[in-house]
């Protein structure tokens, strides 16, 4: 019986991070015919899902951890 789901959840998050599409640079068009909504958010409301929000936190802390490791090595 699975009593500690941490490992499974952490691995799922890692897989989700690998599969996540890379963020594209937004081109700010100022013309009259330019789309009002950015391409990232148009039709992609998944970013506001709780799991994705948690994923963003994990990414941020991982980045901080990497910085700590890099500072420790140099």
């Amino acid at each position, binding site marked *: 019986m699975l009593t*500690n789901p*941490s490992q499974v959840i*952490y691995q799922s998050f890692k897989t989700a991070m690998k599969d996540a599409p890379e963020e594209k640079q937004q081109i700010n068009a100022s013309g009259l015919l330019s789309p009002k909504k950015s391409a990232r958010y148009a039709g992609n409301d998944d970013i506001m899902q709780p*799991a994705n*929000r*948690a994923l963003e936190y994990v990414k941020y802390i991982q980045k*901080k*951890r990497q910085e*700590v490791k890099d500072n*420790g090595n140099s």
Partner: protein
Amino acid sequence: MAIPKKPNERNFDGPIPGQSLTAEIGSRPWQQPPQFSTIEEAIDYYIPRLQSEEVTEQLLDVLEMGIPVTTIANTMQLASVMEGKHSVDVGILVLPVLIELIMLIADTAGIEYTTGIEKPKRIRNTLVNKAVEQFKNEEAVEETTENAVMVEPVENQQMDTGLMSRRV
């Protein structure tokens, strides 16, 4: 005085089946609406707790003892669920964040820890896998012996000192 139990002896001190249903509904903290209903609120609850000096010291002690990070994180979120701080769903979503936070604290303190995520090296119990594993081991042993033979003592090398001699 507690009488020590044998490994296979049944524990009669535990709750009997259905005992949890005898308490009045809503009398337990986890039967009440959770205090923090979103991930952000839950993280805001955990971060100051983990940053406090007292908790950090205890956390580092536990990590140094070899308790995996995943176990600590799961215990923390489970305790909060029991206290009615957040729901099980929020606890599950907060788990990876807690794991990363604990690892960040440990990295900052510069201690070695077990994550609990590493996969144990497991050999499937088939003949082919065993043979492959044995072959790899033998190959590794051969390589080490070859390397040992290849190294020659420095004493045998003659040092030429002439003008046309090769530069080393």
